[in-house]
């Protein structure tokens, strides 16, 4: 903690000139399995820096601790050892500057689309007037392509539209970082592609910082500036792969025709497969 206090306010610049927003140092974390009454270490010694405006993708085998990482950044979990800081300050709890999109949408079924998107304003005292909040809710609903569905209930919407609600709810407070835990994992391929494209244009417009978990290597290459491959449990960083492709990558043509695509994909595939096999040999 003390070393963090020293870092506070220090301007660490990286090669591309942007400022580190999220820094974890030597972070080890896990959670309690309540039923089995034991502690499970999910992540060990994670040193990771996410710059402002960066799109970081986490890939790795199931149960490797990707979600744990995102939960620490969100403030839902505290690191056991090491530190996690956001904008120079240790992460002690949730905050309006960090919003999250969930794989299972996690939108409230008894609320309309509007009411769901309104939720962050209701829960936090954000110094936003009621009228302004309403205006922002309407604007973000329109932006994610849900115009006309404001008064619909989630059970009247398709999976893709439900996740649009999830994205709208996360974006409505204009957070500094968007945390996405396999947001498109439950969607069909077509809807997935539409939402990926939409997310990319959002990132380009707003210079949004994103930490994004996925199981799909194609999705990782399509979206990420960097891709962190996490090893099998307990997770550590196996390798960080830079994706040096210009954006927009999805707007026109197939990203698969990019000259770097094949090599990158094969490299990532080998890493992830290696880790997944490692995970299997550990458990059997």
């Amino acid at each position, binding site marked *: 903690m003390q070393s963090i206090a020293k870092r506070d306010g220090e301007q660490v610049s990286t090669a591309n000139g942007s400022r580190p927003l999220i820094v974890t140092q030597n972070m080890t974390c896990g959670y309690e399995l309540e039923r089995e009454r034991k502690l499970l270490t999910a992540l060990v010694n994670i040193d990771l820096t996410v710059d402002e405006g960066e799109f970081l993708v986490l890939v790795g085998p199931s149960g490797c601790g990707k979600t744990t990482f995102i939960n620490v950044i*969100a*403030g*839902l979990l505290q690191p056991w050892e090491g530190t996690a800081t956001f904008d120079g300050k240790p992460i002690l709890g*949730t*905050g*309006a500057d*960090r*919003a*999250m999109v*969930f794989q*299972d949408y*996690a*939108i*409230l*079924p*008894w609320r309309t689309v509007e009411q769901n998107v309104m*939720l*962050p304003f*209701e*829960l*936090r005292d954000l110094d936003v007037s009621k009228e302004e909040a309403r205006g922002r809710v309407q604007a*973000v609903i*329109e*932006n*994610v*392509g849900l115009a006309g569905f404001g008064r619909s*209930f*989630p*059970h009247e919407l*398709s999976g*893709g*539209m439900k996740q649009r609600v999830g994205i709208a*709810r996360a*974006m409505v407070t204009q957070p500094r970082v968007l945390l996405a835990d396999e947001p498109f994992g439950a969607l069909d391929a*077509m*809807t997935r*592609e*539409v939402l990926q*494209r*939409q997310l990319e*244009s*959002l990132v380009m*417009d*707003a210079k949004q910082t994103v930490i994004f978990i996925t199981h799909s290597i194609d999705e990782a290459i399509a979206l990420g500036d960097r891709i962190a491959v996490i090893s099998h449990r307990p997770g550590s960083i196996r390798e960080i792969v830079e994706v040096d492709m210009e954006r927009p990558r999805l707007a026109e043509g197939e990203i698969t025709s990019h000259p770097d695509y094949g090599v990158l994909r094969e490299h990532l595939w080998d890493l992830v497969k290696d880790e997944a096999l490692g995970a299997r040999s550990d458990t059997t």
Partner: protein
Amino acid sequence: MTKMDSPLAEVEQTTQAAADETRLRDAKWTPARIWRRSRYAVITMINLAVFFTIWELWARDMIPFLPDLHSLVFPTFSETMRSFKIGWIGGGNLEGFNNKLLADFVIAQNFVETLKVYTVGMVISIGLGIPIGLMMGASKWVDAIMSPYVWALSSLPRIAIYPILVMIIGIGGSFAIAGVEIGQPISLWVVVLTAIFPVVINTWAGVKTTDQSLINAARVFGASRPQIYRKVVLPYTLPFVVTGVQLSLSRGLIGVVLAEFLTGATKLGGVGWLIFRSAAAFNAPLTYAALLSLAIFALVLVQGTRAMEARIAPWRQLTNA
């Protein structure tokens, strides 16, 4: 975020337009739609008409292959309806009936007695059951302390406690609320003890099974513990409470009728008492008429709570349908 203009977004919109069109077409009163809307009512009416006709013919020994039951124990439908009419709206010409138990308004009067105890018992059961269930769901301590009693009492056949209640509370006497005489204390105890547990257990289950990812989402967006309860756990639990109330309404009805069977009033002991007493006196039409009244009441109750469920938790209708 820029607006979507991909062809795939259009696919979604076209699907929506098609759905709207279907809805519009369905809104016109075509013969097919009238039939679709009314078929259950029509089938039910035919069904009941057939049932009552068979009853009538059977009681008159006009169906050869069905066993011959004496009219003392198996009245005709028309006799039953006559008792029903006298018992509810009076105007009875009592000649020809074998027992003076059947007086004008006798069913209505007894029904009021039953309803008073039942209503008070249900208000207590729901009013106590919901907070107990919520507290058990929210606090591990309350859960640990309460659950042995709740589970033991809820799995016990409630009528087994009756002798103890008789020893402690005794039979007879009466209690009043705001000057209105309600009924025997023991009946109220039986109703509450039979009806409270479904409410408690269902409420508890609702709190316990609240979707963890909804709670996590609320936490991420800044919910405090009280906010999590108010904005996530309580709305999530509401349909469970409705299910519990539904169950407890029918359990409570069993309780009140059972209590009336056993309390043995001298007059106006409730519908349960009337059924028991008239059967003992072999006034079969009255027994059947009282029973029929109870059945109709129970049916209205169940259908009413079903409608309530549909209004309170429309999102559950789709998954339950």
